[in-house]
C-alpha cells in the first residue's frame, strides 16, 4: 500500500520463525521465509495482532522520536482519552493532563473535546444521509486499511468525517494561534497514541492531504515518567472540558453513545470486523443498520499495544471516572459545532481510495489460470493448515505455488510422501540383489529398517497416508 512507511518493524534477532503470527494475521500479510517472518507491506493493515500473539516479542511497534518536539517553537500534546484508563481514579483528570504536559510540552489539548465535536458532527451527517449506509466509523486507521485492502467496495461507506485526533490538532492550532498570536507552522501538535496504526495515520492520513498533527508518540514509552510525576502535581481540581461522551470514545460502545444512533452495531476485534464486513459485502444489513462503530482492538483503544493497563481494568477505571467529567455539552456548544459542521470544518478533504491487494496477476486472463491452478493444487494438499510451509493456510500455499513464489515441496506432508515414495523405490532396488550373492539376512534387515520409518505417520495426518502405509507393507 502507499504508506510512507509501516510503524511495525520485525526484530530479526527475536524472531524464531515460529508460525504464530502468520496464522493470526487477518489479511494473510505474513509468511515465514528462511526461518524469519516477513511482512508484506501491501497487505499489512497494522492491526497489531502479530504483536499481541508473538511469544518472542519480535514485531516491534514504533512511534516518532520524542526529540522531534524540539523543532517547534510552541508544542501541544494531545493525549488520547485512553490515558484516563491507565491511572488510578484517585488522580484527577486535570492532574493527569498537567503531568503529561510537564513532560516538556507548552500546552495540552484534550482529544476528548474533539471527540465530543465529532460525535455531534456524526449525528448531523447520519441525519442528513439516512438512505446511505450502513455508515462505518473512520476513527480507527486499522479498520480503514482493512477495508481498503480487503473490502474495496465498502470504502464508499466509510464516514467522510475527520477522526477526533485530526480535529483535536486542528482545533488546538486554531485556538492557540488566535490566543497567543503564534503562526500555525510554529505550533507542533503531538499525539499521545495508544497504537502504532495511529502513528502511520499521522504520516499518511487517509482523509487529508496533510495531517494537522506533527508527530505521534507512544504512550507506553512515556508511561513511567508520567506515573512518577503524578504524585508531585497537587491542587489540580479544575474540571476538564471534555464530556463523558468524549471520554468513552476510546472504549467499545463509546462512539455509538456519542452518535446516539437508533440502529447501530458496536464491533471490536479485527477478526470480528472481518466477518462482519464479509457479510455486509453480501448485502446483509443494508436496510436496518445506519451506523457501525468499528474498533480494531478488543475493548477499543484501551486495548491498544501502546497502552499499559489491562484493557478490562482500564474500562473499569473509565467507568469510575464518569463523575469526573461533564455529563454533556451545553446547548451553545452544540450549536457552535453544528455551525462548524455546516461550514465543512469536520469534513474529509479527500475520498478514501481502495487499495485491493488481492489480485494474483495484473492480467485477468492470466489470473484466471492462476486461480484455477491454485484450486487444483489445493485439492492435492493435506488441508491441515499447519503452517510448516510458512504460509498461514493450505489455500494460501496453493496460491503462492500457482504464483511461483513457493514450491510443492514446501509442504511437509508432500515432502514426506515424496520421501516415502523414494524409500519404496529404494527398497525395490535393495531387494534386487543378484541371486548369486547370498545376502538374505542383509535384505531382511534393510527391509525392516526402511519399513520402520516409512510406516510412521504423523498423528495429524489422516487416512490418505494410512493407505500409503498399507501399500508399503504389502
Amino acid at each position, binding site marked *: 500500500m502507499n504508506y510512507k512507511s509501516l510503524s511495525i518493524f520485525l526484530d530479526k534477532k527475536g524472531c524464531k520463525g515460529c508460525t504464530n503470527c502468520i496464522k493470526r494475521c487477518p489479511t494473510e500479510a505474513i509468511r515465514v521465509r528462511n526461518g524469519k517472518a516477513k511482512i508484506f507491506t501491501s497487505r499489512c493493515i497494522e492491526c497489531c495482532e502479530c504483536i499481541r500473539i508473538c511469544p518472542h516479542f519480535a514485531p516491534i511497534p514504533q512511534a516518532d522520536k520524542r526529540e522531534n518536539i524540539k523543532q517547534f517553537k510552541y508544542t501541544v500534546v494531545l493525549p488520547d482519552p485512553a490515558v484516563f484508563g491507565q491511572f488510578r481514579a484517585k488522580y484527577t483528570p486535570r492532574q493527569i493532563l498537567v503531568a503529561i504536559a510537564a513532560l516538556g510540552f507548552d500546552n495540552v489539548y484534550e482529544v476528548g473535546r474533539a471527540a465530543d465535536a465529532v460525535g455531534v458532527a456524526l449525528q448531523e451527517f447520519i441525519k442528513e444521509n439516512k438512505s446511505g449506509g450502513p455508515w462505518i466509523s473512520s476513527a480507527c486507521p486499522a479498520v480503514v486499511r482493512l477495508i481498503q485492502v480487503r473490502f*474495496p*467496495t465498502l470504502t464508499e461507506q466509510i464516514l467522510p468525517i475527520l477522526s477526533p485526533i485530526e480535529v483535536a490538532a486542528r482545533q488546538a492550532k486554531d485556538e492557540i494561534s488566535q490566543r497567543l498570536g503564534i503562526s500555525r507552522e510554529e505550533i507542533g501538535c503531538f499525539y499521545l497514541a495508544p497504537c502504532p496504526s495511529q502513528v502511520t495515520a499521522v504520516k499518511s492520513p487517509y482523509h487529508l492531504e496533510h495531517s494537522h498533527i506533527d508527530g505521534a508518540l507512544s504512550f507506553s514509552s512515556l508511561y513511567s515518567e508520567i506515573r512518577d510525576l503524578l504524585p508531585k502535581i497537587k491542587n489540580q481540581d479544575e474540571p476538564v472540558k471534555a464530556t463523558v461522551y468524549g471520554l468513552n470514545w476510546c472504549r467499545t460502545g463509546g462512539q455509538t453513545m456519542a452518535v446516539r444512533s437508533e440502529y447501530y452495531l458496536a464491533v471490536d476485534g479485527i477478526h470480528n470486523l472481518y466477518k462482519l464486513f*464479509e*457479510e455486509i*459485502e*453480501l*448485502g*446483509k444489513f443494508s436496510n436496518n443498520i445506519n451506523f457501525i462503530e468499528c474498533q480494531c482492538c478488543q475493548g477499543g483503544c484501551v486495548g491498544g499495544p501502546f497502552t499499559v493497563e489491562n484493557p478490562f481494568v482500564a474500562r473499569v477505571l473509565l467507568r469510575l471516572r464518569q463523575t469526573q467529567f461533564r455529563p454533556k455539552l451545553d446547548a451553545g456548544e452544540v450549536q457552535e459545532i453544528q455551525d462548524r459542521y455546516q461550514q465543512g470544518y469536520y469534513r474529509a478533504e479527500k475520498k478514501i481510495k*481502495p487499495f*485491493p491487494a*488481492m*489480485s*494474483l*496477476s*495484473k492480467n*485477468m*486472463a*492470466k*489470473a*484466471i*489460470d*492462476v*486461480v*484455477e491452478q*491454485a*484450486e*487444483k493444487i489445493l*485439492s492435492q494438499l493435506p488441508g491441515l493448515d499447519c503452517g510448516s510451509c510458512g504460509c498461514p493456510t493450505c489455500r494460501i500455499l496453493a*496460491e503462492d505455488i500457482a504464483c511461483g513464489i513457493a514450491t510443492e515441496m514446501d509442504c511437509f506432508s508432500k515432502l514426506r510422501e515424496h520421501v516415502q515414495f523414494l524409500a519404496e523405490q529404494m527398497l525395490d532396488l535393495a531387494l534386487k540383489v543378484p541371486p548369486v550373492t547370498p545376502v538374505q539376512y542383509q535384505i531382511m534387515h534393510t527391509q525392516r529398517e526402511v519399513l520402520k520409518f516409512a510406516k510412521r505417520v504423523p498423528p495429524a495426518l489422516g487416512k490418505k497416508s494410512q493407505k500409503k502405509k498399507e501399500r508399503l507393507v504389502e
Partner: protein
Amino acid sequence: MNKKKIEKTADTKHKIALDFTIEGNNFSSAGEASIRLKHALQHIGYPALLIRRIAVAAYEAEMNIIIHAQRGVLKAEITPETVTIWAEDEGPGIPDVDLAMQEGYSTAPDYIREMGFGAGMGLPNIKRCADKFEIQTHVEKRGNIEKGTKVKIVIYNK
C-alpha cells in the same frame, strides 16, 4: 457447502468453473459459497463494484436454496468477460413466478423471518444485480424434468 470441483473445459482458454453443493436448512454455513466465489473474483482482479453485485446475487440465490430446498448446487463460471451463475435445487418449485418476482412477496416460514431472512427481496434483488436473468421452475415432476427451481444469472464485465 462442502465440496468443490474444478473442471476445465477445452473450448475457451481462460475459464474457471466453481461448483458448490448447498445443504438446505444449514444456516451455519450460509454465505460460504458466495464468499468463496467473491474471493476467487478478487484474486482474478474483477472490478470491486462488479464483485459486489455478483456476490449479492450469488448470496441471495444461495439463501433461496438454504431456505426453500433440501439440497442444491451453486455453479459459477468465470471468464474475463462474463460471470455466469447457476443455482439449481430440488426444492418445491415456485407456483407463481410473477408473484415471486414482486418485492416483499415471501413464502418463507415464520422461523426463517425471525432469523432476519425471507423478506421477499431475494429474486427481485438477484434480478436487479444481474445483466441477464433466467428462471425455470417446476412444482411437480413431468417426464424427465425433475421438480425444483433453476436460476441462471449472467453478469458482464464491461
